[in-house]
């Protein structure tokens, strides 16, 4: 099985791949690296920041609409 895998990898290398699609060696390595960072998740400080920005905006909107009454 490893042999088959290797053979198909070799075939891929020998064929100049025009794109970065699913059969592309380089494309799949790029996505593996990129995906590894994505899977780390978003740090709490960033989520907190978004939360604060959103809350501040809501509070302001509320204030404005109450002020209009």
């Amino acid at each position: 099985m490893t042999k088959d895998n290797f053979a198909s990898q070799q075939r891929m290398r020998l064929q100049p791949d025009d794109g970065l699609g699913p059969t592309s060696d380089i494309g799949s390595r790029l996505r593996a690296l990129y995906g590894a960072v994505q899977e780390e998740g978003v740090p709490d400080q960033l989520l907190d920041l978004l939360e604060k920005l959103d809350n501040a905006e809501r509070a302001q909107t509320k204030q404005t609409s109450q002020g209009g009454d």
Partner: protein
Amino acid sequence: MATETPSFKREMLSTLPSLRAFAVSLTGKHDKADDLVQDTVMKAWAKQSSFEMGTNIKAWLFTILRNEFYSQMRKRGREVQDSDGAFTERLSVHPSQYGAMDLEDFKKALAELPDDQREAIILIGASGFSYEEAAEICDCAVGTMKSRVSRARSRLQDMLKVSGESDYGPDALSTQVTTTNHSF
């Protein structure tokens, strides 16, 4: 609460993991990448009135992040450029489908690309943008984007071919011999 209409915040949240991965690829450092994403989030929030809901928020955020990165780099001079670029730091989640050495070689090859080629191949190959979107993000012509990607791809292919040949054991070698030994 759960049926809330898609908000700007929610749209942003869904893009953050990819935006952060792009930031890591630009800065090469996780702490700097997180600072950059944070600056981007604040910038984007401040100018959210210029964003039209339902249009491509991902491309919009990537554009802001990239502009922010290069403007900070210009301000700080060479200091930011001391990083090796790309995913040079150890990743906490290791992509399981590749051997550690295999990806180490790939990271090194990626780091050796010129900045414009590296960002081009990442935007197209990993972030999932079209050539048109990537060209808009990088403020260049679509043809320029295509040629950057193609140059990046062939350079990576060359570098990996050179470093990869010695990595395979005798098994691999014999496979190669048996499949290619039909020249006469």
